[in-house]
């Protein structure tokens, strides 16, 4: 089969690399017959690099200059030699100024004429011809539109998660991902566990049959309450909503997308598929602003009796923790660094690097937030193509399916989510009054976004 025909082979859709499953027969055989060096590639895993290779200098533009955006931009420049951030775009002037100041502190000034403000700032930034890479880190509502423009302007992309807040956005992202693939534009997403060496090594163990056949999973992200902004004088509706974006579903997608997506993505990755349907609960007890829930508890059904319990909560003074558990017929794993036998004894443990005193550290050498940028630069400079957008979109849609199940109280299937015309938010995004109401979803009734 040629590469060209691959592009249009139906079975390839959301296939191979995305869902290269542990369940797929023959992985064991492939593994045992391959040199260790090749296993990452065979399993569709990224290379673990100590730094991006040297090469043509790359100029990046940052869209969304808040904390995560600024952080991602710094991660990018620290990924290797010849990497620069040369342009900024944000809806708000003060956000651009703050980010620019931080880069000045590092002695990396960004020229004023390359800084853009407003809802169309991203367009102006992407129109700059000498930008090679764009880092997209605005609230997720805007991601599909930004991604589409980036590929139209032929930029490589770092796509922060979530990639969209609704199914219409998800389909747009998948289509744009395919357009990027067709013309060789690399895309790396911010689901950083897939670039975390301990996770990758654990995945290889599981792929090698360390826990037998997978029977069930659990994913959880339980934490204290998150930030919110109270409305200040002089802010119009849209200013307030975008500044407090993390608390409005049409901008944020709710925290099952915003944070829990990491755990959901790991379960999809380890199981090698996305769920067929979801039933779930959720509610709101402690939140002050916005229209989102405080907690979700979702049963994702992967078919054949395999399900994953997904829970997430943002309430203080509760049992907190984040992680994933995957259970198999011969053992279980936390997906991050340990595999247990069914009797609870440790079967395998990831060996972390040792510190100055010879004691093993509890983390890997290169943070995954930087590793993912190393991978992106590696792909651009070596031509070893990478595109994570589709598989992140699949995990993102899984989270949307869970959210919809909780909001409506109904059983929601993957197929109906994939085809849904749910599109959140106002028709036109601009400053000024916003003609929207923000009722908190009530299960048993239709959620209209």
């Amino acid at each position: 089969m040629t590469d060209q025909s691959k592009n249009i082979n139906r079975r390839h859709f959301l296939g191979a690399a995305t869902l290269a499953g542990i369940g797929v027969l023959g992985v064991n055989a492939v593994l045992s017959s391959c040199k260790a060096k090749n296993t990452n590639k065979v399993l569709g895993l990224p290379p673990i690099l100590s730094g991006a290779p040297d090469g043509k200098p790359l100029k990046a533009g940052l869209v969304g200059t808040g904390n995560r955006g600024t952080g991602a931009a710094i991660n990018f420049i620290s990924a290797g030699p010849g990497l620069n951030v040369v342009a900024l775009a944000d809806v708000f002037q003060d956000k651009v100024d703050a980010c620019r100041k931080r880069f000045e502190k590092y002695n990396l000034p960004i020229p004023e004429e390359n800084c853009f403000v407003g809802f169309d700032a991203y367009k102006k930034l992407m129109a700059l011809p000498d930008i090679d890479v764009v880092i997209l880190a605005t609230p997720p509502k805007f991601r599909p539109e930004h991604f589409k423009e980036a590929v139209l302007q032929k930029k490589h992309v770092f796509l922060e998660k979530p990639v969209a807040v609704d199914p219409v956005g998800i389909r747009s992202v998948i289509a744009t991902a395919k357009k990027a693939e067709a013309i060789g534009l690399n895309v790396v997403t911010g689901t950083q566990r897939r670039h975390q060496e301990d996770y990758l090594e654990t995945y290889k163990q599981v792929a090698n049959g360390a826990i037998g056949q997978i029977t069930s999973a659990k994913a959880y992200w339980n934490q204290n309450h998150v930030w919110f902004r109270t409305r200040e004088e002089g802010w119009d509706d849209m200013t307030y909503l975008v500044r407090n974006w993390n608390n409005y579903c049409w901008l944020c997608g709710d925290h099952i997308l915003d944070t829990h997506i990491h755990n959901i993505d790991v379960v999809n990755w380890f199981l090698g598929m996305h769920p067929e349907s979801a039933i779930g609960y959720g509610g709101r007890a402690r939140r002050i602003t916005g229209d989102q829930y405080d907690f979700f508890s979702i049963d994702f059904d992967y078919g054949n009796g395999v399900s994953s319990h997904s829970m997430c909560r943002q309430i203080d003074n509760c049992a907190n923790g984040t992680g994933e558990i995957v259970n198999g017929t011969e053992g279980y794993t936390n997906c991050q660094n340990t595999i247990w036998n069914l009797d609870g004894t440790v079967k395998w443990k990831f060996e972390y690097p040792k510190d100055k005193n010879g004691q093993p550290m509890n983390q890997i050498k290169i943070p995954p937030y930087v590793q993912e940028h190393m991978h992106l630069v590696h792909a651009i400079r070596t031509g070893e193509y990478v595109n994570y957008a589709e598989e992140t979109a699949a995990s993102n849609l899984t989270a949307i399916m869970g959210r919809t199940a909780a909001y409506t109280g109904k059983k929601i299937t993957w197929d109906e989510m994939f085809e849904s015309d749910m599109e959140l938010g106002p028709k036109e995004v601009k400053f000024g009054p916003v003609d929207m109401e923000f009722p908190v979803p009530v299960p048993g009734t239709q959620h209209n976004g």
Partner: protein
Amino acid sequence: MRRIKFKLKNPFRGSKAWLWFILFGALACIFVASAGNELMDYTSTDEYCMSCHIHPHADQSWKLSSHYDNSSGVITHCAECHLPPKGHGYLPAKIKHGFNDVYGMLFKDSADFNWEEKRKFEKAQHFVYQESCLKCHGNLFPSTLSPEGDDAHLYFLTSKKELSCINCHLHVGHFDPNAKHEHNLSFGDSTIVGQIYTEATPVTEFKNFEEKIPGTDVSFDMVAIPGGTFEMGSPEDEPLRDPDEGPVRKVKVSRFFMGQAEISWDEYLAFFQATSSQGRKESMEENELDGISGPTPPWGAPDQGWGKGKRPAITMTWHAANVYCKWLSQVTGKKYRLPTEAEWEYACRAGTQTPYPFEGSPRDYSSKGFIRKIFAPDTTIINSFVIYDQNSEGKTKEPGDVKANPFGLKNMLGNVAEFCSDNYNPGTYASYKDAITVDPRGPKKGREYVMRGGSFKSDAKDVRSAARDFTRTTDWLMTDPQMPKSIWWYSDVLEVGFRVVCEADSLVAR
């Protein structure tokens, strides 16, 4: 001279004769193969195709199409679409089409071909090859693809059903000025020519009347159908019957008015213009009094370019037909609805208990089977009543082309299959236990609805009074590129329409 002769002769006689044999054999093979290759290529050129395919309109429409007239200057030739690429069954397809073409040339007259029908997907899929489309169109996601295109191509990739490129892109190889690859936003725009009715027809007596749709110049005839009792279904000895038509049940039906003909485009477009909406309203509340939200603009031309006017409206969904009735009730102040299956069959039979409401046996009229291919049936009688596959030329017809049944109803059988209000279940009749079942309404629950009467595509077997059929929602929306699919228009069925009934008791005292 002698020496040469000797030299030439010798090798054939000598022990190395076999060497020469192989050499000549090989040369002959190469010659034949290269000539064969030439021949193969020559017989796939446009000139060769057109030397037999006498269809100047096809040549013209091809030259006007995007596969000839485009900004890149590339010309796509006949065989590049009408044969698969080499390595994808090129030779077998060439042989198959070759035989077909030779047979057609020798025994048929191309002037008799129904070219328009051949351009429909059902026919075109047999001589347009998916692999050929994909050979050139290797990138389904060019960066300039529209959001609608994104959705449609994602649907193509994820659909569990086999989809073909020409399901959607039917007219790209041969230009059709009527075909639009877009939402037909101007669909149904018309200028009113006649007198505008200000009010619906008042009805005080139980007799035929002409209903007028207020605010339009559209009117239609309603026939008073007296109540009565009849045998619903077909007896087991009825030729070509299906098991779901039995057991026969005695059914009593109350009086009602019924549309003399199927809903016409004139009538349906009055509804469309009054209610059509750009957006979607998925869950319309029952008995919603104001603000009935009607169909979205259709994709392409739902009338297939056959013309609108008095021709029956087609391709609307059961849901759309149902909303039509609610709208009609609202504007006329009467109670319009879809007929029940019992009302439909009672009205169709019009007092007869034979397979058809006219003379003749299904076995004589049906063209199914080998014998019928040779001895054409005598269809004079059925032809005067029914538009079906033997006389329709693949299209709907106007009601003026047929005779009415004893009740005065036209096109009950044939033309378009008609929606009933009942859910379909093959065991419906068996569930009627009473000696006489009064005004049955079918099963309480179900996913699909009853369709009756057969259509312009049906064999005589399926245009019997008792023949039952049902909606097939998934199949009929297979190629709808929208996500989610339309609730107003079927993308993959042409032969569906409906007629209305009006409840008599609310208008006329007993």
